[in-house]
């Protein structure tokens, strides 16, 4: 791929900052969703871990960041790092329990973990605020940039963190470790036969993915200064999978496209009618699965090829 293409999404994100106006907070939530979807791409897309429980990590990170800000320190970066780390530890523990299973059993176990965590958070209302959620204040980023009313700091802060995670994800999937995940997805038995420690590899990628999802949750809590039980809900897990497949799995940039299209479509359709968006998203999903297995990235690929042919056609050399 031409390196210039890599700059495109980031340039668009920066351009959005200057042109968004009142939509900047919507932009921030898109960035948070991109990070969540990206994390799912590592676990589900590359390693083939079928999960409907990523909301557990998203919510764990969100509550972690909120509780850290309230009880320990209001510094955003410190809170983010701590929330990310504890989410990773949580993922290692749960991953060790469940990652020897596959298919529907694994799906149900990830689902059960998310439900258990949501119920626990609901019951421990003295700590988590229960249905009311937690509202808190954050200190300035790096001690310099306050979270302002227009969400400018929030947007740029989220964008920078997303970029850092994207670079990490890119390095991971293009490393020998990432290639071995490809093999594990295609056939665990064969990878085991050539001596790959499948279980450990799965735990490792599960932890990385969960840390990323935890970061996304922490960012969502920090930028809105609020965390509620919905961060742990089944809908979050479901939406993350939807955004990933809509955009295209195993592409990394698919997360960008899927999350952006999903949030924008939902926002517009919900304005027409509060239930209309379910119709649109449902239809979009079915169409994607039936006709566009590579997701929206495939449309982009077709467009790029067409563009190249057009350029070559006009160029006499």
């Amino acid at each position: 791929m031409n390196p210039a293409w890599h700059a495109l999404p980031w340039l668009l994100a920066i351009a959005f900052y200057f042109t968004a106006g009142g939509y900047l907070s919507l932009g921030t939530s898109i960035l948070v969703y991109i990070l969540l979807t990206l994390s799912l791409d590592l676990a589900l897309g590359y390693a083939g871990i079928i999960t409907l429980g990523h909301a557990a990590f998203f919510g764990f990170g969100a509550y972690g960041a909120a509780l850290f800000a309230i009880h320990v320190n209001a510094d955003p970066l410190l809170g983010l790092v701590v929330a990310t780390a504890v989410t990773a530890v949580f993922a290692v523990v749960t991953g060790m329990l469940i990652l020897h299973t596959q298919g529907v059993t694994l799906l149900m176990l990830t689902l059960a973990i998310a439900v258990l965590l949501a119920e626990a958070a609901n019951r421990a209302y003295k700590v988590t605020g229960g249905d009311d959620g937690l509202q808190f204040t954050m200190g300035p980023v790096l001690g310099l940039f306050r979270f302002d009313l227009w969400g400018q700091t929030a947007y740029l802060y989220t964008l920078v963190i997303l970029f850092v995670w994207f670079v990490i994800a890119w390095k991971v999937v293009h490393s020998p470790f990432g290639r071995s995940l490809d093999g594990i997805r295609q056939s665990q038995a064969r990878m085991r036969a050539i001596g790959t420690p499948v279980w450990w590899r799965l735990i490792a990628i599960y932890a990385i993915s969960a840390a990323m999802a935890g970061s996304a949750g922490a960012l969502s809590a920090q930028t809105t200064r609020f965390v509620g039980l919905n961060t742990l809900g089944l809908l979050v897990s479901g939406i993350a999978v939807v955004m990933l497949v809509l955009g295209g799995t195993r592409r990394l940039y698919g997360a960008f496209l899927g999350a952006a299209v999903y949030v924008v479509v939902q926002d517009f359709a919900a304005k027409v009618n509060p239930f209309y968006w379910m119709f649109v998203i449902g239809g979009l999903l079915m169409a994607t699965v039936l006709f566009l297995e590579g997701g929206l990235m495939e449309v982009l690929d077709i467009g790029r090829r067409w563009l190249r042919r057009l350029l070559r056609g006009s160029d006499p050399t």
Partner: protein
Amino acid sequence: MATATVILLDGLAYGMVLFIISVGLTVTMGLMRVVNLAHGGFAMAGGYLAAMMIRAGVPFFAAAALATLAAGILGGIAEMTVFRPLYRKGELAQVLMTFGLTFVFIAALTWLFGTDVKILPIPSYLAGPVDLGFRTYPTYRLFLIVVGLLLFLLVWFVIEGSLYGARLRAAVDNPRMARAVGIDVNRLFTITFVIGCALAGFGGVIGAEMLQLDPFYALRYLVLFLVVVAVGGLGSFKGSFVAAITLGVVETAGKFLFTDIAAFLLFALVFVLLLWRPNGLLPPKSVA
């Protein structure tokens, strides 16, 4: 003692409803290996249709029968249009496709009927309490237990005793071998799928008293149905019966005794059961 009996009876009635609805999911997920997140939609459609017909003056059982038929037909249409292309695709595509279908179900029902809860009036001869000797108990719940038991016996008899059942068992245990001896596995699964959807519709009708009927039905109770099938063992009817009854009794007991942590207990149990027996309580031979 009296409390224990009530918990047991309530749990049984609840478990029977779960079982009736989950039979169809056992078929799709267990036998045809399609992760079907849209299954709750068929139960919901059955319930809504029956509610509409009863309001229009159709007697309860006639409405239930018609709704069962309609859910079956709906299942047949869905099988031919939506599910056929899915058989060859991976689990992820199946999850998404059926998730999308559920969204469309919910949006369509909201558009047609609004978001309010639909009540299915119980016929007057089943509405009252019945005297059990030491206390009274709602007749309708006893009726649910009886119907659930009869259906289980019927399903068991058909699967263990009929030619159709023998073919089905063969197709589950080893689809390639079954094809080789001349069984039309695809047609067999299609028929079973339609019957499963019809049963889900029936469960949606008679279980409406326990599982609240509104457009989000399809998502809210989906996890329960999935759990029944996964815990019971994919493709095992006996397993899903045992799982449905166990989960029904455990959840009811939890609600009675530990109101605060009932849902937590239920899913903790599911978690432990699945870790202990990853293939379910009573997996069919091909899996075990």
